[in-house]
C-alpha cells in the first residue's frame, strides 16, 4: 500500500450556512465543538495506528469554518497530529478561514499552532454580491483580513473568489480580483457559483426568484480572470486554481495526482492506493453528533466504503488528473479515448502526458467522463 502523506481534517461548523453551500456543515451546533475536537483527536490516533501514514507532507483544516476553532483546540489537534503521525519538516499546514475570524491575535495563534498557509473565503468584495451570497463579512473586512494575515507574517495566503454571481458584471468581478491581487496573495481559487441541487439557492432558481447567468457570461468571467491572473504572474495549474511559482497547494495536488490521503472528522473521505493499482475509498458519518458518538464507541466512524478495481481506479485517476492544466500521465491506459478527445479538440497529447485545451477546460466533464467505464 502506498504510504499516506496527506491528512484532511473536517470542521463541520459554521456561524451561518450560506445559501449556495452544500458542504457537510452546520450552523447552531457550535456547542459541539469541544467534544468534536476530542473525537477528532481520538480518530487521528486510531487511524495513525491502522494505516501506513506519515510523516505528513500536508495537513488541511477544511470546513465548514475551521477558523471557529479556538487557539487551544487547534493546538490540541495539531499536537495530536504531530505526536500520533508526525510532520515532515516544511510540511504544508492549511487552515480555511473566514475574514470575520481573522485578526492579528488569531493569526499569531494559528502560526503558533503550526499553521503556515491560510485560505481565506473572500468570495466577493461587493456589498450586493456578499449580501446575495449571505456572507457575513464586508469587502473592507476581507481586504483587512488579508493585510492582517500578511502582517502576522503568513507567507502563503490563498484567496477564494466566486464568479458568475447573479448581478455581478464581468468588469465588477475583475475589479474585485484586481483589488484582491493588490494585497499580494500567493494563491487564488476562483470558482463558478454553482447551483447545487439541495440548497436554498437551487430552490430560489427553481422558483424563478434567481436567474443564473448564461454559460457565455460565466466563461467570459472565467477566462478574463485567467488573463488577469496570468498578467499578475500566477500559473493556472488547475481548472479553478492559480498560484505564484512555488505556491501550488500541495495538499490539493495530492487529490489531483491521485495519491492516497486520510480524512478525519464528520463526513471526511479517505483514499488508499493499493499496490495492484486498485484503490479503496471510505468515508465517515456526516452528522457531527453521530460522528462523536461513533468515535467514542469505536474509535472511528466509517459510514461507507468502495473498492475500485485497477481499471476503474485508473479511470478515476485520469478523470481527476486531467483537471491539472499542465497535464497528467494518468490517462495512459486510455489510448482510444485520448485519441478521440484529441480529435475533438479537447486534449493535446504530449508524449505520455495529456493536457486540456481551452475548449477542453470548458467541457472538462466530457473529457473526464470519457475515462470512466
Amino acid at each position, binding site marked *: 500500500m502506498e504510504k499516506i502523506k496527506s491528512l*484532511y481534517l*473536517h470542521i463541520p461548523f459554521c456561524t451561518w450556512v450560506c445559501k449556495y453551500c452544500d458542504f*457537510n456543515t452546520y450552523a447552531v451546533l457550535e456547542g459541539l465543538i469541544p467534544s468534536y475536537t476530542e473525537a477528532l483527536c481520538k480518530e487521528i490516533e486510531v487511524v495513525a495506528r491502522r494505516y501506513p501514514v506519515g510523516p505528513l507532507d500536508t495537513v488541511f483544516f477544511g470546513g465548514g469554518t475551521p477558523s471557529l476553532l479556538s487557539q487551544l483546540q487547534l493546538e490540541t489537534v495539531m499536537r495530536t497530529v504531530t505526536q500520533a503521525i508526525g510532520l515532515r519538516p516544511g510540511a504544508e499546514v492549511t487552515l480555511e478561514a473566514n475574514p470575520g475570524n481573522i485578526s492579528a491575535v488569531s493569526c499569531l495563534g494559528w502560526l503558533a499552532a503550526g499553521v503556515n498557509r491560510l485560505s481565506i473565503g473572500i468570495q466577493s468584495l461587493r456589498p450586493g454580491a456578499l449580501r446575495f451570497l449571505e456572507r457575513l463579512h464586508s469587502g473592507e473586512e476581507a481586504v483587512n483580513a488579508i493585510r492582517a494575515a500578511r502582517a502576522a507574517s503568513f507567507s502563503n495566503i490563498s484567496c477564494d473568489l466566486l464568479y458568475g454571481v447573479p448581478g455581478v458584471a464581468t468588469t465588477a468581478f475583475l475589479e474585485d480580483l484586481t483589488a484582491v491581487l493588490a494585497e499580494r496573495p500567493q494563491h487564488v481559487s476562483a*470558482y*463558478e457559483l*454553482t447551483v447545487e441541487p439541495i440548497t436554498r439557492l437551487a430552490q430560489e432558481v427553481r422558483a424563478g426568484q434567481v436567474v443564473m447567468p448564461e*454559460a*457565455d457570461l*460565466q*466563461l467570459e468571467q472565467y477566462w478574463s480572470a485567467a488573463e488577469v491572473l496570468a498578467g499578475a504572474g500566477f500559473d493556472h495549474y488547475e*481548472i*479553478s486554481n492559480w498560484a505564484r511559482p512555488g505556491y501550488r497547494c500541495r495538499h*490539493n495536488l*495530492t*487529490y*489531483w495526482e491521485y495519491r492516497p*490521503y486520510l*480524512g478525519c472528522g464528520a*463526513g*471526511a*473521505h479517505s*483514499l488508499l492506493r493499493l499496490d495492484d493499482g486498485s484503490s479503496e*475509498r471510505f*468515508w465517515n458519518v456526516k452528522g457531527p453528533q453521530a460522528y462523536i458518538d461513533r468515535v467514542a464507541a469505536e474509535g472511528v466512524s466509517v459510514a461507507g466504503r*468502495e473498492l475500485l478495481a485497477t481499471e476503474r481506479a485508473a479511470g*478515476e485517476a485520469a*478523470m*481527476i488528473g486531467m*483537471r491539472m492544466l499542465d497535464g497528467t500521465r494518468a490517462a495512459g491506459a486510455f489510448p482510444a479515448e485520448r485519441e478521440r478527445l484529441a480529435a*475533438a*479538440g*479537447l486534449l493535446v497529447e504530449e508524449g505520455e502526458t495529456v493536457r486540456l485545451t481551452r475548449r477542453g*477546460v*470548458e*467541457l*472538462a*466533464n*466530457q473529457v*473526464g*467522463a470519457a475515462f*470512466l467505464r
Partner: protein
Amino acid sequence: MPTPTSLIRAISVIAHVDHGKTTLSDRLLEFTGTVAPRDMVEQVLDQLDLERERGITIKAQAVRMLYQAQDGKTYQINLIDTPGHVDFSYEVSRALAACDGAILVVDASQGVEAQTIANAHQAMEHHLKIVPVINKIDLQQANPELVREEIEKALGLPGDTAILASARQGIGTREILEAVVREVPPPTGDPAAPLQALIFDAKFDAYRGVVTYVRVLEGGLRPGMRILMMQTGKTFEVDEVGIFRPDRIPIEELSAGEVGYLIASIRNVRDSRVGDTVTDAARPAAEPLPGYRHVTPMVFAGLFPTDSEQYQDLKEALEKLQLNDASLIYEPETSAALGFGFRCGFLGLLHMEIVQERLEREFDLSLLATAPTVEYRVKLRNGEEVPVDNPDHLPDPAQIESISEPVVLATIVVPSAYVGNMMELSQERRGQFLNMQYEPGDRVIITYRMPLGEIIHDYYDQLKSRSKGYASLDYELAGFEEANLVKLDVLVGGSPVDALSMIVHREKAQVHGRRLAERLKALIPRQLFEVPIQAAIGGKIVARETVPALRKDVIAKCYGGDVTRKRKLLEKQKEGKKRMKRVGNVEIPQEAFMAVLTLD
C-alpha cells in the same frame, strides 16, 4: 364417460376494450366452481404478466366449466377468451369459429363502441348465437335502457332480452349461464366421423413443446394418434390430449364438440398454425375447415441492439419469442447508421410494442426501434413489382413506375359532438369518406377508407384526444391503392441516417420534413460540435435546423471529498449516452428514431 353433445356448449365473450370482458369471464369461472374464489387472481385468464399489467388479452385462453343448470342437468361449457385488440383480429376470428355462441358484453354507460360492432358482426358471420349482456349496471352513469336501444338499432339484436349484469358485483351471472344453456345450440359434429379439429391458438411450453388449442368439430382426438396438419401438411404423433380447468388436465379423448389441447412434440408454433385443421393422418377428413388465412404482418420496423455486442443475444431472443408467436417475422437487416439488427414484421403497433417490451424485459436487452412503417408495393418501369417494407430500400425514383400503399376500412364510433373533429382528422390523414350513420344515444358510426401508413402514425391517439377519449376505432385491411409517395431522407451532421428515412405523400413531404427537423433538434442533445439536421426529398434539402454545440460542461470544484460524487455524476451522464446510438460523430437518443410517429 364423454359428455353427450347435447350438453356441450362452446362460447366466447366478446366486447369492446374495457367493457368488462375479463371480469365477467372471471365471475363465470367462480360461479361454476372452476376456480375457487380463494385462488382467484384478478383476471385468471390473462396469463402473461404483460397482459395482466396492460389489462388486455393477447393470447386466447380456453377453459372448461361444468354448470348445473336449473333444468337439473350438468352442462359442459367451454369458454374461449379472445384477444381484445384490433392487431389480433385474425386470432379473434379463429376463436369465434371454434364457438357456437358468444356473450356480447356492452358497458352500460359507454354503450356500443367500434369494437362492439366489429366483434358482433364477426360473431354473426360465424353464425354464432349472440347473448347480449349489459355490464356495469351498478355504475351511476349506467343507462341500460339506452344501451338496449343501441343494441337493437346498431347491431340488430334483440335489446329487450339483454341481460343486466355487473361482473364486478356478481349480478346476473346465473342468468347469463342459463341463457347460454338455453339459447346457444349444442354442437352437431359426429364423434364417429373422420377427425376435424380447428386450431385457435398455440403456445410454446419449454418442457412439452407446442401446446395446441383445438376445438374438435368432427370425430375424436386421442393420444397415440398420428395427426396431419392439413395446411402445412406436417404430421405428428399425439402424446397427450386434455382440457383446461384452467390448468391443463390430461384426458383420454377429446370428442366432437369439445374444446381442449393436444401435445405432440411440435417444436415450433409455426407448425401449429392458428386456423389450420387437425385431422387423422390414417383417416383424413375430405377437406380442411374453411377460413384459414396465412397471417401477414401489417407493420414493419427495425430492431437494433443499442450495444452492438448484443446482436447475437437479440437473434437468440427473437428465435425464442417466435416459438410462441407465429405472427412475428424477422430477417437480418444492416443499417449504415444503426449497424446490425433485424427487420421485423408485426400484426400492428400494439404487437410491436409488446414484442419490444418482452425482448427487453424477458431477455434483458436494450433495443432501439426505428419508426414503424407499412409494406409498399412498388411497380418498376421494367414491369417488375417489389415489396418495400423499409423506406431506405425504396428503389431509385427514376426506376419507379408507381407506388401502392395498403389501405384499410376504418370504422369510427363517436358521440355526434365530435364528428367534425373526427372528419377533420381523417381528412388530414388522407382518409376517403365512405359513410356516416346516426345511431340512438347520440352516437355516429363513420367509415373511412384510409392508408394504413397514416393510421400507424398516432392516428388512434389523435382520435382519442380530439374526442375527449370517446371515439373508438376498428379497421380491417382493404387492399392496396396507388398513391403519390416520395421518400424523405434525413441527414444528421451531414450524413444521411437511413433509419430516419420515411415514405410520405408528396403533398405532405415538405411539412413533414420541417416538423421532423424541428423535433430532432429538440431531441438530439447538444454535442461537442454544432450538428446540422436536414430533411431532403430526392437530394433537395427541404428543411434545416441546427443543434448548437455544447457550450460549457465543467465542475468548478473537485477535491478529496467530492471525487466519488463527481465520478457518479459523470458515470450517470455516460450511462445516458450509452442508451444513445452513435451515428458518425453524433449521439442520437432512442426517441429521435420514433420522432416521425408524432409529426402531425
